[in-house]
């Protein structure tokens, strides 16, 4: 069976910290309890799939799918802002002209050294 650890970068909810618990309002505590129930449901789904003896395929992680899709399809959501235009000009357009100038001058004036 695989070990289960907490996600190393996730923050602990305030309601689980005994020093903070009594400073929080009942509404907040109720909201945190609902969120904890949702999280427990997700963990239960993962554990059910993980320990299913008839499972043959990978467990699907929707977050991973979203991340991979985002990394693979940047052009669909591209917007021409000042920053992106500057980056495009700096890395895509200007080097071509600079390199053309450098090579032409080098070959014509100095014979390629």
């Amino acid at each position, binding site marked *: 069976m*695989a*070990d289960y650890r907490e996600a190393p970068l996730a923050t602990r909810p305030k309601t689980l910290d005994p020093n903070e618990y009594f400073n929080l309002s009942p509404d907040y505590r109720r909201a945190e309890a609902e969120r904890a129930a949702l999280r427990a449901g997700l963990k239960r789904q993962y554990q059910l*799939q*993980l320990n299913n003896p008839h*499972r*043959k*395929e*990978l*467990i699907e992680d929707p977050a*991973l799918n979203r*991340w*991979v899709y985002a*990394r*693979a399809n940047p052009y669909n959501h591209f917007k021409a802002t000042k920053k992106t235009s500057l980056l495009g000009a700096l*890395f*895509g357009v200007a*080097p*071509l002209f600079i*390199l*053309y100038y*450098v*090579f*032409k001058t*080098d*070959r014509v004036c100095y014979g*390629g*050294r």
Partner: protein
Amino acid sequence: MLKILIPTLFLLPTTWLTSSKWLWPTALTQSMLIALGSITWLNNTTDTGWTALNSYIGTDPLSTPLLVLSCWLLPLMLLASQNHLSSEPMNRQRMYITLLATLQLFLILAFGATEMIMFYVMFEATLIPTLLVITRWGNQTERLNAGTYFLFYTLAGSLPLLVALLMLQNNTGTLSLLIIPYAKPLLLMPFGSKIWWAACMIAFLVKMPLYGMHLWLPKAHVEAPVAGSMVLAAVLLKLGGYGMMRLMIVLDPLSKEMVYPFIVLALWGVIMTGSICLRQTDLKSLIAYSSVSHMGLVAGGILIQTPWGFTGALILMIAHGLASSALFCLANTNYERTHSRTMLLARGLQIALPLMTTWWFIASLANLALPPLPNLMGELMILTSLFNWSAWTLILTGIGTLITAAYSLYMFLMSQRGPLPQHMLALPPSYTREHLLMALHLIPLLLIILKPTLLWGWFAC
């Protein structure tokens, strides 16, 4: 030539008439025998340079390595496809093998053509089986988009080539590769001749691909099934390089001025696509962009029109063909186990599949041009001839080599080292077929170290 062409042509009746039990062994055996027969072409004994010559087809030291590569690749493609096709109905399997065999036929005719129009027709004809393979046997819905990009980029680039070739035929009276080097240069008005030069070259630059026109390649390579990716990376890109090398002779006095923008694009493309590789999450996409990067170097080597440039380009084309095809096969072994191309999902494989790690290691080292492999020989020759052309190119090619090493090692470490994902259960062990496939890719690459002059083209004295 006929002893290779007729068996390849008859691979088509073979696939349709053998019983389903013997289909794959028969197709494999026949294509392997064709491949072994094609190695005899490497023996170039004539003084004029053209061996196996008749009115339509011939081989010379430039086309021979590419012909042997494309013949060698067919059994490898069949080996790689056996698993994912085994669950399909028989007719579709036969159709697949038919498409690969017709592609092989067109490729042999293209590389062996002595007449430029025949080369052009075969160049276009290879698009059709590849398009069918990508759009019908690809795995994701994006395959339709990929097929469209692939077809229309290449077609749009090659229509001007038809016009340019017809103009050349009108002016010189012939398009035979044996006569064209000695014909009078084409004299047109100044601007017209620049357009003619561009028309000749654009088709091959799109096919290679050159950095600005490379968008079709990651899509097509990623969405194609493994045999499609293999043949695209290994041979179809080299059609572009081969066409450029053939036509350079005719384009001579114009080329001095016209090549600058394309060399700039090619070299900057080496760096840009290499950097994109470092950010990829999709394994096949990484290998596809690395193909663009290597082909940028090849384009640079061809465009400067020096002997070492041509030699380096030819060696790098063959070595890259074998190494890139090997990497796509390895990516396919991952895909068949996890049904996902994401690199994060298939990491730490050294613990699970240690023997496959050996092949990953050799293929990654080949990709990063480790000495004494022929990849390094090609890259060094191109690097030094570019340095001779202009000293400033060394900065670009040096950074490019560095980035190539970085992403090849990144790919190896990401897929092999590190912790295995915890939910990974059913990883079937490596099949013997997969080991055979990788061995057949990498052992020729290692053997070329012993006699690289086979691949030096016209300048192997």
